[in-house]
């Protein structure tokens, strides 16, 4: 069996109310629920999912996953339709092989990420 390679996905949550804060715990719970219902326990086990960083204010974050789970993760993210009682759409911004590149690309693409970096919420662990 091939060795699992780790990939990183930067995402953002678009909400009806832009000032709304989405708690980290709620997002993680919803994500795992969607992964389980769509791909089952077997798929969830292969996913290698881990939330590296999350900013509740800008509603952006960075997920680590196994390289075989890329499309499945996108599908699970798109099934998240409501968080904190409002309609949401979770979209991936960029996927990369390293945390550094993911952050760099996401910053180029999204202003919200840039602001989040200024506030120091995306410090590497």
């Amino acid at each position: 069996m091939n060795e699992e390679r780790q990939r990183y996905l930067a995402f953002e949550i678009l909400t009806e109310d832009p000032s709304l804060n989405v708690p980290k715990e709620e997002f993680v719970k919803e994500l795992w629920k969607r992964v389980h219902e769509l791909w089952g326990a077997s798929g969830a086990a292969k996913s290698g999912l881990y939330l590296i960083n999350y900013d509740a204010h800008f509603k952006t974050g960075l997920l680590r996953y196994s390289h075989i789970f890329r499309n499945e993760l996108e599908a699970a993210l798109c099934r998240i339709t409501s968080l904190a009682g409002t309609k949401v759409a979770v979209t991936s911004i960029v996927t990369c092989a390293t945390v550094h590149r993911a952050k760099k690309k996401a910053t180029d693409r999204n202003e919200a990420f840039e602001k989040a970096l200024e506030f120091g919420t995306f410090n590497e662990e």
Partner: protein
Amino acid sequence: MPKTYVEFNLNLERENELDKAVFFAQHMDYKDIVVNNDKEFLKFKDFPEPLEIQGIKFYRKVILTGVIKNMQKQLSKERFKNHVVMVKPISAKEATWAVLQPMIDGLFLSADLSGRETWDNVASLLNKHGKIVEFDMSPLVFCSEKELSRILRTYIRLLQPLNPNKHRIVLSSGGSGVWGLRRAKAIRGLSKAFGLGLQYTGYSMSVYPRQLIKNNIEKLRPNYLGGGVWVIKDE
């Protein structure tokens, strides 16, 4: 792989949703959007000249009911000649009738359909007449956990008689309103759940919808006779 995706089925509920739709579409890598024309408030221009806002082009599409009598009435209206016309059949019988109509561009398959009927005849007709098949992905995105397995089962059965190498399959994320929009890559990933491999969905959100729009524009040429036949005059 083409990156200029087309959202083929968007329902706008209010006029002021258009700006929001542009914002969402740009975020989700869409270049063109085909909007359902059920509501007349959008006041689009004629089909060959789509409405363009901030680089996003909006085209029109009509989805008819699946009842044959209603379809005949609506198709007789001349205003539909400039549109992409899709039919949402309620059973295989209506689908067979619809595929044989030259005015109709393809079938719109949703989760309401019964997957127990045999669609082999419809599948062969689709291939013969070069019509497209559109799978509505909004039920898969917005359904509850209980309904998910039923919807997946329906889609698996509908997909069985189709050959992704021969049939042109289009995927659309269209729910009601702009919050129904989802990223094209996510929709492709979701199609994997009912057995449509990623290798078959490469063109389903970019090339095939654009081909359909292009064909409809060609139909408006004055020398077009139908079925790929044009009048060529001697100079």
